[in-house]
């Protein structure tokens, strides 16, 4: 490792970190938020036994879980335009990853909701609350607490999955490293640096996760 490479790595570090903060992390947060909403709707459709919908959501979960994410990305980004539906890289990645989070986390969320004793929902009814009010005020907050550790693991997994969006021309961390290396041919060092950026982001998230878990634990 010579001085040129060291300088190059220092210079590229900022670029990779920026790509992480401006592209990968926002994509993670946007996908996770939307995915979590989907996961709750899927879980509730099954728990509330909403007719038709409860079967449709199972088909959705099945399809998402049994096809690779990269194939889904290709279908959305390269395939859909041929039938006139065009999304840019970010939106394509966001769509696919939201649907993926929604499918994978729905089981976690469902188990967490069902871990809250059903008697609490009956108590809500006695208090005059509707099913949905009981869910929002009593059941879901407790379910979130239970689901917090597995869900935060999903976020960390998601950060790493954003690198797949490289394949649909999203200039995230990996693509940025690839572009710099294409000029300098220092592939080894730049991919190592890209790995380091993921390591940093995920480590920070891990620390936040354990702090948040401790804080939640104090409030019960």
């Amino acid at each position, binding site marked *: 490792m010579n001085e040129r490479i060291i300088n190059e790595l220092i210079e590229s570090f900022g670029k990779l970190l920026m790509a992480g903060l401006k592209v990968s992390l926002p994509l993670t947060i946007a996908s996770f938020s939307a995915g979590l909403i989907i996961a709750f709707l899927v879980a509730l459709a099954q728990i509330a036994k909403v007719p038709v919908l409860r079967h449709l959501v199972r088909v959705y979960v099945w399809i998402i879980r049994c096809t690779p994410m990269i194939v889904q990305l290709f279908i959305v980004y390269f395939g859909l335009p041929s039938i006139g539906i065009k999304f840019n890289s970010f939106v394509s990645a966001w769509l696919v990853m939201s649907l993926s989070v929604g499918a994978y986390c729905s089981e976690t969320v469902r188990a967490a909701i069902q871990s809250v*004793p059903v008697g609490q929902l009956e*108590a*809500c009814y*006695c*208090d005059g609350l509707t099913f949905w009010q009981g869910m929002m005020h009593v059941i879901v907050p*407790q379910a979130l607490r239970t689901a917090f550790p597995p869900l935060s693991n999903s976020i960390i997994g998601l950060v790493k999955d954003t690198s797949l969006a490289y394949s649909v021309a999203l200039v995230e961390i990996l693509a940025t490293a690839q572009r710099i290396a294409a000029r300098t041919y220092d592939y080894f060092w730049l991919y190592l640096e890209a790995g380091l950026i993921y390591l940093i982001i995920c480590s920070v998230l891990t620390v936040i996760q354990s702090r948040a878990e401790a804080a939640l634990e104090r*409030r019960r």
Partner: protein
Amino acid sequence: MLELKNVHKQFGDNVVLKDVSLKVEKGDVVAILGPSGSGKTTLLRCAGYLNRADSGRLVIGDKEFDLKKIAGKDLLDYRSRVGFVFQSFNLYGNKTALGNVTLGLTVAQKMKKDEAEEIGRKLLERVGLSDRVDYYPSKLSGGQQQRVAIARALATNPEVVFFDEPTSALDPELTGEVLNVIKSLADDGVTMIVVTHEMEFARKVATRVVFMENGEIVEENNSKDFFEHPQKERTKEFIYKSSTWASDTQIDGSGI
């Protein structure tokens, strides 16, 4: 004041309530006794509209409700007239004692927060828990949890409160504090229907006693006459066994 009319309920082919009717006067404390599986819980749950009856009506004050279906505005009105206390407390785990009492007021009855909290504090004081207002259920003993649940059931100042074995889930040394609270409500004239296995409670606190078996009311009387002059053979036997050593007939884990 409160009347159950012909409540019928079956689960599949299993007829659990056979046209049960019951009249309760204001201020009455009715103890429902009976062996496990006789339909006591189901009767309360139908009357409390946690299960839908196949048919039956409930008159409370000036209103009559169809226990087969209560909906919309009627349901909220009905809920505010009826309180329910569960065997297993069912406190909201994410709410403090005060939050448990006020949730229905703020969310369902759309009351302002301060107003609801004032009511909540008063009720918690009434059940002897002024010093536990901000505690979460997990930090309370079983007896304290059940007292919070009683305060919660009283939040809307209901015309009747149903209790399903309020002390059965408690360690023996904690039943007293809960029964004392129920007794103090009785002294204040709160109308209550209490499914119980506590014979002492039925004797001393209840004004009326109802004995159920196989989904029917076998015998019903004021509590003095019920215990001193039971009419039916089956009732005599039950009183005799329950008052002596027959705890095996008292254990009731049938749940929902």
